[in-house]
């Protein structure tokens, strides 16, 4: 078990920092309390460093995913942290600072906030490195539970509470669904170890069909996870929750649970396997079809509903749904058989897309969270409507450009990062033989272009509205949120210029996927294989007990 610990140093580090942050937040000195966010950043940086230096080990199915996923978590986490700072209890802090109220450790939420954030990121990291279902379940819950609180607490508005209630209850239901799915998977294969599950499924497939319980479990698990990635049919909460939560939290919601969901789905699908290794592998029968249907519905519904919105956050929420649909296309296609270290590797495509999507998302939400408008009651409210960003170029040119780049990046416009992330989605879909799916993807990109273009033209090309909007325009005093936007925009533009993407392609490579099948012994099977069905002895390779070559 200790060998596992060695690969968990980043998570452990992050966890420890989280604890420290919680303690620091209890201090009555504002200066000390203000250390929360630097500490969190330090923790993330350290974790990132540890990811690079330690050897990550996840399942042997997707050996590169843990380190990539953890690095991604740290990177985007840092950007999200920049956005989050200053979000919670601003008013309370101000009151304390002006002496209107006395500091009370029970009333501050700053420390909790950062702690929740870091817990969630820890969960995400654990997701990427999960090797069995229990771990995966716990990691997913660790990712989600803090976010429920964050949503509900993110602002004083009623909307945040509404978002919180919707998010929490529906989330609980989703969790129950995938938990039941996990149970069935366990029932169908007799193990919770993902490598072994893969092995068992392989065996079942050769024995005349994958066990129905396994398939039912997979199906339920995937549907439950659809909640995390905001895919049809579990997408309904998305716009309301995204709109209700404060923008920085929305940015986090759009990335962290989604990434966790995709890590989990990728793991499950890897265990299920994309058919044989002839290069045109497809997911086993019902799962492949269902996932295709989900992908088509998700991207289409997301896009057509986004077209109608007047709230920027809702637009981004629906676009978040659509993006999940795009990524599902690549997952349907799978890593491809022979050329799975190339651009047609759908799993790698999803990993890269998560990066591009996360960064562009941060950029978009950084603009929204920087802008404020005066609410009728004299307080400030965050920007949400298109009217709030109309003519932004005249008031804050830098932010306007960030918004434009974010929109174009999400659109996948060349030569921005989004394009190079979308390219492998297309390529993997085509390579998997899902031409129709790719055409639907292309058409959906065009529909999406409509509302992204609207974002572009509203910010860049139009003049600010009269009607009080311009007067109520203000910017939050938190320069770091803007900074997050700038950094994200720089990445959107700059990543293709430096060979970063190329590296990313390499990092996301899932070269050894299918290794389990190539060399039959690749499955690390310290315990005897489960024997759920009959005819379990038919394994073609004789050297079944060879120890896998995990690097």
């Amino acid at each position, binding site marked *: 078990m200790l060998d596992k610990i060695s690969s968990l140093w980043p998570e452990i580090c992050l966890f420890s920092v989280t604890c420290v942050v919680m303690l620091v937040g209890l201090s009555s000195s504002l200066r000390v309390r203000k250390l929360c966010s630097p500490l969190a950043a330090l923790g993330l940086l350290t974790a990132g460093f540890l990811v690079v230096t330690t050897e990550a080990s996840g399942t042997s199915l997707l050996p590169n995913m843990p380190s990539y996923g953890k690095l991604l978590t740290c990177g985007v986490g840092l950007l999200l942290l920049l956005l989050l700072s200053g979000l919670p209890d601003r008013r309370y802090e101000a009151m304390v600072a002006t002496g209107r109220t006395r500091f009370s450790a029970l009333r501050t939420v700053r420390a909790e906030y950062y702690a929740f954030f870091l817990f969630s990121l820890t969960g995400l990291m654990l997701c990427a490195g999960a090797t069995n279902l229990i771990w995966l379940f716990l990691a997913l819950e660790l990712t989600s539970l803090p976010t429920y609180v964050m949503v509900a607490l993110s602002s004083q508005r009623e909307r945040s509470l509404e978002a919180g209630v919707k998010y929490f209850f*529906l989330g609980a239901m989703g969790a129950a669904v995938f938990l039941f799915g996990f149970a069935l998977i366990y029932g169908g294969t007799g193990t919770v170890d993902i490598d072994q599950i893969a092995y068992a499924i392989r065996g079942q497939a050769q024995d005349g069909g994958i066990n129905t319980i396994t*398939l039912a479990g997979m199906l339920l698990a995937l549907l439950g996870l659809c909640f995390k990635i905001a895919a049809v049919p579990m997408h309904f909460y998305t716009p309301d929750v995204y709109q209700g939560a404060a923008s920085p939290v929305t940015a986090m919601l759009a990335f962290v649970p989604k990434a966790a969901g995709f890590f989990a789905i990728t793991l499950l699908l890897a265990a299920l396997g994309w058919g044989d290794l002839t290069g045109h592998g497809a997911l086993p029968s019902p799962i492949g079809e269902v996932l295709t249907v989900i992908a088509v519905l998700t991207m289409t519904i997301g896009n057509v509903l986004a077209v109608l919105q007047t709230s920027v956050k809702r637009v981004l929420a629906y676009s978040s749904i659509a993006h999940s649909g795009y990524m599902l296309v690549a997952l349907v296609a799978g890593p491809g058989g022979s050329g799975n270290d190339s651009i047609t590797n759908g799993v790698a495509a999803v990993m890269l897309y998560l990066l591009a999507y996360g960064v562009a998302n941060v950029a978009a939400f950084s603009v929204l969270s920087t802008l404020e408008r005066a609410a009728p009651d004299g307080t400030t409210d965050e920007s949400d409507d298109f009217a709030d960003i109309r003519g932004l170029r005249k008031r804050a040119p830098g932010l306007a450009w960030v918004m434009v780049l974010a929109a174009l990046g999400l659109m996948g416009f060349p030569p921005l990062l989004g394009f190079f992330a979308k390219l492998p989605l297309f390529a993997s879909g085509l390579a998997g033989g899902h031409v129709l799916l790719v055409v639907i993807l292309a058409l959906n990109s065009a529909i999406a272009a409509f509302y992204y273009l609207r974002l572009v033209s509203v910010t860049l090309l139009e003049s600010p509205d009269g009607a009080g909007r311009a007067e109520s325009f203000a910017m939050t005093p938190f320069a770091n949120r803007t900074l997050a936007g700038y950094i994200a925009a720089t990445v959107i533009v700059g990543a293709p210029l430096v060979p970063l993407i190329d590296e990313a392609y390499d990092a996301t490579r899932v070269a050894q996927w299918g290794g389990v099948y190539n060399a039959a012994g690749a499955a690390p099977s310290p315990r005897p294989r489960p024997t759920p069905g009959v005819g379990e002895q038919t394994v073609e390779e004789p050297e079944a007990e060879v120890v896998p070559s995990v690097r």
Partner: protein
Amino acid sequence: MTDFLPTLLTLASEPVAAQVGPVGFAALKEVSLSAPLAAWLIPGLPMLGAVLAVLMAIGGVKSKLPAWTTVLCLAGSFAVTLWLYLQMRDAGAAYTTVKLFDWISFDYLPGKAFVANFSLYIDQLTCLWMLFVTGLAACIALYASEYMSHDVGPGYCRFFFAFCLFVFSMACLVMGDNLLLLYLGWEGVGLCSYLLIGYFYAKPSAVAAAKKAFIINRIGDLGLALGIMLTFVHFGTIQFAELLPKVEQYVALATSGNLAAVPASVQWIAVLFTLAAFGKSAQLPLYVWLPDAMEGPTPVSALIHAATMVTAGVYLVARTMPLFQCGAVTVPPDAWVLPGLVVPALDIVVWGGALTALLAATIGMAQFDIKRIMAYSTVSQLGFMFVGVGLASSYAGAFHVFTHAFFKATLFLSCGAVMHGFGGQLDLRKLSGVMWMKGWLVVGLAMLVGCLNLAGFPFTAGFFSKDVILAEAFSNPHQRVVAWILLVTAGLTAYYTFRVFFRVFLGPKSFEPGDEAHGHNDAHGHDDRAHDGAGHGHGAKGEHGAKGEHGAKGEHGVGEKGAHGAHDQAFQPHAPGWAINLVLAVLAIGSLVAAYAYPTKWVKGLVEKSSAAAVDLTGSAAHAPATLLGMDPHEIMYYVSAGVGAVGILVAFFLHYLGRKTAATSRADAIKLGALQRGAQHKWYVDEFYDATVRVPLKVLAHVLHFLDKVLVDGLVNLAGLLPRGLGMSLRPSQGGELHGYALAMACGIAVLALVALFSLV
């Protein structure tokens, strides 16, 4: 001149066709000129003139300088043509090509080239055409120097620019060694025609006429372009020197009576060319532009729309005579109408020409605008020419072109002088006895010469050239009907010609000056520019087209006399100056002397020593026995046509001279022909007919298409754009905002997908 009559009489008894045997292209030998590139001076000098005119326009020259440079250039061009002619005359039946530089030449397959260069093809036909083109152009430029003098300035430069460009284009048309260069000239003259018809661009009718001319010509050009493509695809070349030998085998087929055996792709070339020729030369059904083209300044009408450009169609037929000889419309044997019918292209040409000649003559009889009458007479005479070439006698056509160029130019310029002098008056009911007014004698005499020629008065050039055509028609047993049509037309021609002469030039002296706007409102442009440049003194007056007419009248037409306003009393005819008189005299004499070309067989020799000479289709055997009233047609035609002409003149004399007291009335007024007369006056409603059958439906179609484009094509696109929106609308209720609704939808979604899974499993 002394031996003119005896020679004439001796020759008159000989059948024309028997004298010089047509030689065909095969008999031509290729020669090289001394200083061949000098031939390029013929188009080159007019081009120089055009460039100079442009430069002068830029330089703001406000004198007659552009006219002088033009006259000089054109005269130079004429001189070079003469030199060329002399060289070619010495060479005999020969041709030569002079290449300047490559134009459109490329490999269409490896090793196979499409060649259309700036290269001249010169044989005797070329020389004939270029001699009268450049000669007349030089004369008319001189005439125009005075005629256009009211417009000195940019307009003057523009006029002479287009004039020079026209001669250049005409030279390319006539001298091009390939069909594409011919096409360049063909469209080039069309452009110049467009620019010059629309010279008075402030007048909507002029602009409309110019547009009409260009577009109808474009229809003809379409035929030419398609014909050129077909020629190239079939023969692999469009250079005359290479093309004509390749046609000979088909000509042989055709002349041996086996026209149907010629491949359809060859047959159709001539048919397409016919379309082109009918467009450019204003034949049925494309003649309608030419009468309207009289909106242009008169020198332009004389040169372009009478003497030279409109004969381009005749030239095309003559130049590609071998193609025409094997051209036909063949109805496939299995067609359900007229199976197996073969209509030779030349028959189309003949019938087109004859019908046009008659139709235009009837219209010409009923018109009152003298320039328009001349226009219709041009259309009619062009019909004669087409009958000439259509009878496979390039000589007959070319000879009539040659003589017609002189006398029609004379006629137009005379009319122009009248118009110039009487404030743009062209109505023959408002002018009378002009010849006897002071300073108008030369004009009157020139007009008389022209009229005699046109009416086919014996021993005039027009008499001979028309007779050749008539005789050819009568001697061809298949074309008797055409011959009679032409004979009738000749009589009508004599009548309407002298109707003009008797009414305008003879009779009691009386006039009513015209509305200057009719002819001279090019002045507006000039005017406005003048005060645009020189301040805004007249401000309001010059700015507007509608008002400008008055402004122009005040400043120009009678400007010297200082009679603004009440023009009827104060108007004095503005007698032509030396340039106009000189040119009229020269041309009148020229059209008399041109008759000399008949007895000396000068034109005949030129034509028959060129590629235009047709291989005799009917064979000499068929030719000889054809008789009319028991005599040789050529012989009897002298008498018959002279008689017909005389009748026409006499009728005109009786109706329009005898006893005429005023300008406006004549005995002819008493003749009421009802619908017939009205029809002729209204040009048989052909314009209206075209309007109703072509233009209006096309316009409606265009509007419908525009509508469809907007509503259907773009509508579909917009619909596709709305589709996502509509889909979104219909899905929107799913986002009702209620927790339970979402939960229910999620549960249902899971159930549905589970069912999907179940179904795909089963």
